[in-house]
């Protein structure tokens, strides 16, 4: 499903984002990616969605080889992924509803499907009442949940979430995590970069720990990495 082969990402200013990373995630897995701030979690996820391209090595996602991909295929790769961005990336001129609907419009869903799925997705993240609000009219946590709804709405094969609960209170965080687990049980591969020790420790999923761009450990039923 997702495979990194000796992948290295060095940013244009010389900073190492990821170093000699070899790892694979199979279909249907639920994986936590942990690590200190700046350890390369987002870089790892950005390489999957072709936001960044590897400097060296290879990345394969859903049958695409991301490291040398024709421009025209990138949108299709991304459509097979649902992404919760760490910095949200909501369209500022669209309401919560329209932001979620947008993800369906680009795959040319019928208006009927859109009318059914979008409220459902907003309901799942507990934002039915904010459907008409614009991003700047929502709290941080609300925006974050809209992004999650957008990532879910097309039932992607892979769900990538970069700190999806960073702006959420523990109760809502748990609700969201349970939601992700449920989605995972329905067959979606889920990859979550997170800092929530509680959640990682409780859920007992596979944990990939990064340190300064390198994979430090990769355990099934892992715990939140105990720093020193």
């Amino acid at each position, binding site marked *: 499903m997702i495979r990194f082969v000796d992948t290295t990402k060095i940013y244009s200013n010389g900073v190492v984002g990821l170093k000699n990373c070899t790892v694979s995630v199979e279909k249907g897995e639920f994986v936590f990616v942990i690590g200190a701030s700046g350890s390369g979690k987002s870089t790892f996820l950005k390489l999957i*969605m072709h*936001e960044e391209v590897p400097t060296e090595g290879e990345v394969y996602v859903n049958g695409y080889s991301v490291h040398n991909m024709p*421009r025209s295929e*990138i*949108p*299709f*790769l*991304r*459509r097979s*992924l649902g*992404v919760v*961005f760490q910095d949200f*990336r*909501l*369209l*500022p*001129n669209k309401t919560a509803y329209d932001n979620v609907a*947008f*993800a369906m*419009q*680009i*795959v*040319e869903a*019928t*208006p009927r499907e859109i009318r059914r799925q979008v409220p459902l997705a907003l309901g799942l993240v507990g934002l039915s009442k904010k459907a008409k609000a614009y991003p700047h009219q929502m709290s941080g946590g609300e925006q974050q949940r809209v992004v999650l709804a*957008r990532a879910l709405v097309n039932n992607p094969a892979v769900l990538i979430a970069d700190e999806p609960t960073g702006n959420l209170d523990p109760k809502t965080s748990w609700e969201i995590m349970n939601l992700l687990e449920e989605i995972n049980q329905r067959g979606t591969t889920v990859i979550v970069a997170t800092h929530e020790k509680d959640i990682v420790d409780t859920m007992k999923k596979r944990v990939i720990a990064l340190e300064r761009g390198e994979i430090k450990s990769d355990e099934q039923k892992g715990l939140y990495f105990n720093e020193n």
Partner: protein
Amino acid sequence: MKIRTIRLLAKEGTSNIYKNKLMSFASIMTVVAALFFLGILLLIAINITTNIESMKRDLEVTVFLNVSASAFEREEVVTYIEQQQTAGVVAQYRTESKEQAFENIRSELKNDDLLKGLTVENMPESFYIKLTNPAFSDNFIEKLKTFSGVNADYGIGYDKAELEKLEGFLKIFNFVIMALLVVLMIIAVFLISNTIRLTVFARRREIEIMKYVGALDSFIRWPFIVEGILIGFIGAALSFLLTSQAYTWLQNVLNSILISFRLTTLSILEFGPVALRIFMVYSIFGIIIGGIGSLLSVRKHLNV
């Protein structure tokens, strides 16, 4: 692409005009300003050209008959002129009789001493002929010379020098105005696409986000193109209104100046007859630049 998607993208482009008010306003106003100035300049150019052309047409061919020309000889000339008038070569003509010629020369010379040798009888009759087009003059004059009643000694007058001067003016003027129009056109294209580029630049994050979510280039591009075309068209329509108002006002002021200076040979064109053409030019210009400007501006930000 499915039909409902096309409709969706068109709607999106339209509603973006409202959503980005300041930027739409800026773009529309740039189109208005550029087209307005282009149009006014074009109208002035048309006016000046028309006037110089009409001055050229006002040049007269002057033909003197022999002092002793018979009525038959005279008739021959008149027939020829009138026949040419039917053929569309001659626009109009007038004759000057011997009496009129005498009066004219008398008032011209003033000094009676000089008139001693002149009588009505030894004055020639003459014709003043306006051609529809100065290009006919050479043939027409050649033909006239062959009539026996025509006094070839006096020469058949046609102010070649004046004509050449006018044509010189016209050429200079056309050259300057063409240069100005071309430059202005380039500037207009440049300014409009510049503005569009800025407005798209201000929304580059949005474009990137759409790409990150998996939108195809065309899905992102079309609303912008629709928006650009609409902005171009709205700008053109507003500019047309502004032009017609401004031109009508200019026309009134100029007409009163013309009258006060008795420059009655000059005339200012009406707006009505050229209105449709101006509107078409504006619309096509606005739409094309708006659409293409958007297309090119968006393209740059699609590469993420």
